[in-house]
């Protein structure tokens, strides 16, 4: 890997973005990379938009991805992917969960509206369906199996085992296995 790798993950408060950040960071560290991340806590988590950044490479300074510099954007909710467009360029890969969480007092944007807007930026858009609490782990595992990020599935699995509490480990391992199966189709 010549350049630093920049990931932005977006979703809404309560979707487990910080856990996903921790898994990715652990996997990057154990793959021998320097890593920095950024997250927000507090009131921003009460169901509002959440955005976390993970950067890894030989030597990383900034915890924030610069505008237009994301290599991979993972959106755990489809409309939120629009928020991450700020970090995208023509080569950015979007991995989007086709999952809608309505915004109170706003019209929900359709899948077509959302993807139509994103396609003007990048042609590399993957949309998958994942539900429930393991959606994040599923998407991250899928990204690894499809080689959308330079972290091997084995490293992701190790990190899942390290980060996820015991009582939730089995269901997350299942999500990892499902991603493996889906990646081959």
């Amino acid at each position, binding site marked *: 890997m010549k350049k630093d790798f920049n990931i932005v993950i977006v979703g809404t408060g309560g979707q487990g973005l910080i856990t996903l950040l921790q898994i990715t960071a652990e996997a990057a560290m154990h793959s021998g990379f320097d890593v920095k991340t950024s997250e927000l*806590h507090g009131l921003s988590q009460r169901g*509002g938009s959440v955005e976390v950044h993970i950067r890894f490479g030989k030597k990383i300074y900034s*915890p924030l991805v610069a*505008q237009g510099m994301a290599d991979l954007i993972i959106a755990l909710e489809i409309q939120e992917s629009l928020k991450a467009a700020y970090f995208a360029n023509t080569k950015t890969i979007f991995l989007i969960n086709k999952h809608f969480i309505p915004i109170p007092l706003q019209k929900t944007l359709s899948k077509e509206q959302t993807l139509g807007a994103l396609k003007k930026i990048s042609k590399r858009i993957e949309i998958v369906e994942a539900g429930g609490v393991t959606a994040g782990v599923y998407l991250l595992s899928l990204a690894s199996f499809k080689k959308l990020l330079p972290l091997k599935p084995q490293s992701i699995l190790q990190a899942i085992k390290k980060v996820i509490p015991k009582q939730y480990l089995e269901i997350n391992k299942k999500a990892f296995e499902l991603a493996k199966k889906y990646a081959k189709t």
Partner: protein
Amino acid sequence: MEKTILLGNEAIVRGALEAGVQFVATYPGTPASEIGNTFFKISRSGEFSGHFEFSTNEKVALEAGIGASFSGLKTLVAMKNFGLNVCSDALLPFVYTGTKGSTVIAVADDPSCHSSAQSEENSRAFAYLAHLPVLEPADPQECKDFTQLAFQISERYKIPVIIRTTTRVAHQKMPVKLSKLPAKTVPQVKFIKDVQRFVTMPPRVLEMKKELLAKIEAIRDFSEKSKINGGPSSGNFNTGIITAGVSYLYVMEALKELNLNLPVLKLGFFYPLPEKRIKSFIKNLKKVLIVEELEPYLEKEVKSLAKEVNCHLKILGKNLIPEVGELKPEIVTLAIAKLTNKKYRIQDKGYKIPVIRRRPQLCPGCPYWLVFGGVKKAINLKEVIFGGDIGCYMLAGEAPLFLQDYLSCMGSSIGIAHGIKKASGGRQKLITFIGDSTFFHAGIPALINTVFNKSNPLIIVMDNQTTAMTGHQPHPGAPVTPDGIKIEEIVKACGVKNLKVIDPANQAEFVQTIKEFIQKPEVSVVIARHPCIFVKKQKT
């Protein structure tokens, strides 16, 4: 060496533990909360054997810390920026008396106000006000290392030292090199009387100030030699950069991006500044860019130092870097590109992206919905002013509720209510919303004032039995082991006649009470008690 991924706040905890901290007090506040949360966790599990407490507010937390320090314990006090305002009355004399047990105060600022509803505060100003050493780490490794160094400085010079972070430092993660923890010891200390040292009465207080200023100059000498001020410098350059904190990381990223090699002076000490180091850095430069978030304190210092050594130096700063809002890597890269006449274009083709605004909401099932819903049913909204306070319930200001006509600092909903009531001769009706933890923090003196100086707001204490917004920390009314201090007993003791404790789930009673209390000629208090959905009932 062992490396563990740590959050900036966790790294501060680790640094304090490696330094052998023995007494920790805090009041939760984002982005500093995880310092207290981590100590809470490890003190309950037995990993930390010293004293830990969530204090009632930051002033009390610091005062507890001062007592521990006077008695000889190694002490850490942690808070967010506004906490420093709250405790400043205790802070200034503490810098005069100095410490006995070394003492570090961790303070987290929040540029861009991600989690701060009252002002975009730059706490570095307290360094000047209080003559207080301030260190600024840029990343979690430095959070740990600087915390240890801060304890050493405090030990050596007998002065409290501030570790000042910002959101992007406090909530940044990276692999951190850990050192060994010292062996657990049971501290045998006691307060030993020393009037000369611990009593700030005039004329002694002025001698203390002289001693303090001398200390600061001694620490400045230390700062001149310290490795935490420095950075890459090589070759013969006309242009340099001076920076501090997280801004340094953006500078280094920008130099990488622009493929530039410039000398950089990173200042780990904000106060006292290593003036000689700065002078020698700028002496032979033609241009210098100061990259700092918020107000241009460093820029002003460099301008005054340049007059002595290089009066033709072109000093750039806030003309290229915004004063409002946090910095981002692209902002700094653009500024350095302008500084060096390099081409840099952000990869932004002005795509038309539909805007989505997903604001935080009260959780589904939150008991506060019942309070706000009940109030809406009980009164004519146009005839009533709504005072907001600091907590989850300030979301009442947002859609779909819109029940917030003013918002300021902790506890102020009641204090300001009294002023509004007096101004209108009591004619305007007013309801304040204040949370249980906020009531304990700063609401009680304001309540006493409404009784003493006779005004009649209707105060609704939103008692959800926890400090919800910052992560469900315990407070005096809802401690870890039950039997907390009852808010109704305090309200009664203040002389409030119109008082009811109601579960807002009993809507009919709640609505009826609001209707009745809003007409009262004296102050009234409704304690709307229903636990936060995240609080498990500890006692039935």
